[in-house]
C-alpha cells in the first residue's frame, strides 16, 4: 500500500468517503473502530487497508455499541479517534455519545446517513438532522455537527471536526449522506496545520509523577451534577457564539433565499444559477455547521428577502430551527423530499412559483 497521507495542495480525484479518510489521516487520526453498514463501507475498508502501515489501529467491532465505547477508551487515552456509520448504527452509538459528552471526551463520528426510520432504506436522506443536532442520547447535551456538501468539504471539514472536538472536548459529528459519500470529484488536499491541535492535559496515561486522574460522567455528590450541567451549557453557548459557519451563495440582491445543507444545498446551487439566468434573484444561505446553527445569519437574511425557501431531504426538520431564528414566519416556505435527492428542475419550479412566474 502506498502511504495515504495527502501531499501539500495536491489535486486528488476521489469519492467523498475516501476524502474523509484522507482528512482524518492528515489530521493525525490513527485509530478507527467501526461496524459494517451501507452506504459508508468504503471508509472502514480504506482505514483497514491504510492505518496499520501508519502504526495505527483499525478494529472491526462486534457492534456500534462496542465501537463507540472503544472510541471512549482511545479518546480518554488522549488519541484522535474516528468511526463512521449510518442511521441505524448511529442510533446504537447514542448511549456512548451521551457518556462521551458527559465525560467531555472528543471524537469524530461520521454519519453517511440513509433513509429511515427503522431499517428504512439505503437511499440518501437528511432524516437524521434532529438526532444529530438535538443531542440524540439521554441527559441533555450537544454534538458539534458539520454538514459537507462537496468532496472538498468531506476532506476539510473532517480535519476541522478533529480540531473542534479537541478544542471543546466534545464529540463532533459529520452529517453526510450517500450522495456526498459516493460522488467523485477533484479536491485540493491542503495540508493539515498541526498548530490547530489542542493539548490534552486531562488524558489518562498512567499516573507517573502526578496525582491519579479520572475521566467520568457520574457526579453524585451534593449539587455536582447541576454544576456540571451548567459547565456544559456554557461550553455549548461558547460554541454557538464562536463556531457557527455558513456559506452565502449568490445572496447579493436576492429576493428568494434558499436555506439548505449538504446534498440539498449542492443541488440548489444549480437551480439558483438557472433562476438567475431567468432573471430571478435567487440565492442561498448554506449552514456548514448545523450545531451551532447559523441563527444570526438566518435572522438577518429573513429581514432582507421576500422568501426563505428551506429545502431538505426529509419532511421538515431544519425548517423548525429556521422558524426559531426569525419572527417572520410568513416568509418561510418549505420543499421536502424525504429519502431522495431533489432535482434542480424541481427546485427551479418552486423558485419560479415563489417568484410568481410560470415555467
Amino acid at each position, binding site marked *: 500500500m502506498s502511504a495515504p497521507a495527502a501531499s501539500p495542495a495536491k489535486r486528488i480525484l476521489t469519492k467523498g468517503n475516501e476524502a474523509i479518510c484522507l482528512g482524518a489521516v492528515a489530521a493525525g487520526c490513527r*485509530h478507527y473502530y467501526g461496524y459494517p453498514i451501507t452506504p459508508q463501507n468504503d471508509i472502514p475498508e480504506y482505514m483497514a487497508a491504510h492505518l496499520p502501515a501508519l502504526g495505527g489501529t483499525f478494529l472491526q467491532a*462486534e457492534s456500534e*455499541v*462496542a465501537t463507540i465505547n472503544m472510541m*471512549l*477508551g482511545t479518546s480518554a487515552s488522549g488519541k484522535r479517534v474516528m468511526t463512521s456509520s449510518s442511521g441505524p448504527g448511529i442510533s446504537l452509538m447514542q448511549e456512548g455519545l451521551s457518556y462521551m459528552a458527559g465525560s467531555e471526551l472528543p471524537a469524530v463520528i461520521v454519519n453517511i446517513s440513509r433513509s429511515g426510520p427503522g431499517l428504512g432504506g439505503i437511499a440518501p436522506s437528511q432524516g437524521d438532522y434532529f438526532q444529530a443536532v438535538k443531542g440524540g442520547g439521554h441527559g441533555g447535551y450537544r454534538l458539534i455537527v458539520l454538514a459537507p456538501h462537496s468532496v472538498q468539504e468531506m476532506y476539510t471539514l473532517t480535519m476541522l471536526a478533529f480540531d473542534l472536538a479537541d478544542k471543546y472536548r466534545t464529540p463532533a459529528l459529520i452529517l453526510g449522506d450517500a450522495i456526498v459519500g459516493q460522488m467523485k470529484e477533484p479536491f485540493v488536499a491542503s495540508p493539515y496545520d498541526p498548530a490547530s491541535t489542542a493539548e490534552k492535559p486531562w488524558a489518562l496515561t498512567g*499516573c507517573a509523577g502526578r496525582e*491519579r486522574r479520572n475521566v*467520568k*460522567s457520574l457526579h453524585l455528590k451534593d449539587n455536582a451534577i447541576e454544576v456540571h450541567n451548567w459547565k456544559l451549557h456554557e461550553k455549548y453557548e461558547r460554541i454557538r457564539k464562536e463556531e457557527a459557519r455558513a456559506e452565502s451563495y449568490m445572496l447579493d440582491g436576492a429576493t428568494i433565499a434558499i436555506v439548505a445543507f449538504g446534498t440539498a444545498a449542492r443541488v440548489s446551487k444549480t437551480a439558483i444559477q438557472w433562476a438567475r439566468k431567468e432573471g430571478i434573484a435567487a440565492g442561498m444561505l448554506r449552514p456548514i455547521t448545523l450545531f451551532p446553527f447559523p441563527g444570526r445569519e438566518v435572522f438577518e437574511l429573513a429581514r432582507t428577502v421576500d422568501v426563505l425557501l428551506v429545502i431538505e431531504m426529509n419532511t421538515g426538520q431544519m425548517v423548525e430551527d429556521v422558524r426559531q431564528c426569525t419572527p417572520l414566519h410568513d416568509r418561510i416556505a418549505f420543499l421536502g423530499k424525504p429519502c431522495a435527492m431533489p432535482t434542480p428542475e424541481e427546485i427551479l419550479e418552486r423558485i419560479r412559483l415563489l417568484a410568481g412566474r410560470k415555467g
Partner: protein
Amino acid sequence: MSAPGKVGFSKAVYTRPRSLVDVKSHFCPGCHHGTIHKIVAECIDRYGLREKTIGVACVGCSVFLYDYIDVDVVESPHGRAPAVATGVKRAQPDKFVFTYQGDGDLAAIGTSEIIHAANRGENLSVIFVNNTTYGMTGGQMAPTTMLGQKTSTTPYGRDFRGDGYPIRMAELLAGLEGTAYSARVAVSTPAQIRKAKESVRKAFEMQIGGMGFSIVEFLSTCPTNWGMKPLDAQKRVLGEMSEYFPPGVFKERKQADFA
C-alpha cells in the same frame, strides 16, 4: 520505620498497599469489594504497575473503584468496560489495563462486549465480582442469581422456567480461544484470599507477558440485598454458591499465541 530507641519494629511486615487509597470504606458491612480492591492493589504493587495502569470502572457498586485504587480510572457505560478497555489498550499498548465489573454489568448487559474482547484475545485483565444480585439498584435478579433465590424482581424465587439459569461466566469464557486465563475464586476465608491473590497475579502476568485476555471471577457477598448477616453471607458463599459456581482455574495458557 523504627522510632528512636525502640527495638523490634524495624521491618514492616504488613502495610497498606501503596495503590490502595487511605480512605474509609463506604461499602456495606460484610461486602467483599474492599477485600477484592486490596487484592487488586497488592498485585498492582507487586509488579510495579501503579504509574502505568489505567483502570476501567463500570456501572453498579463497582464504579467506586476510582475512590479506592490509586491509579488513573476511566468510567464506562453499563457493561461496556471491555470495549472501553480495548480502546485504552489499543491506544496505549505499553500500559496495564484492567476492568472491574459486577455480574449484572458483565454477564447481562455486557455479554457481547466481554465475549468479543475475550475472543479477540485483547491483552487486558478483567476482575469480575459475582454477588448474584444487582447491589446498587436494590437487589434485583442478576444473570447469576441462584435458582430459588428471592430478589426484589424474583419475589417468589428465581425459576428456570421463565428466568433461565444462573450463568457460569468463568467456564464460558474459558471456552474461547482468545482467553489466556480464566479462574473463579472466593474470598470468604484467609486461605481463599491467598488463593485469590495467586489467581489475580496469574491474570496480571498474562497481560504483562502479552498472552491475551485474562479474567478472575470473584464469588462475593451482598449481605444488605441478600437480607443476611455478614457471617451468614460468608456461609452462603462457601455453601450453595461454591457448589453451583465451583472455584478453580478453567484455562491457563502456557505459551503466547500472539507473541
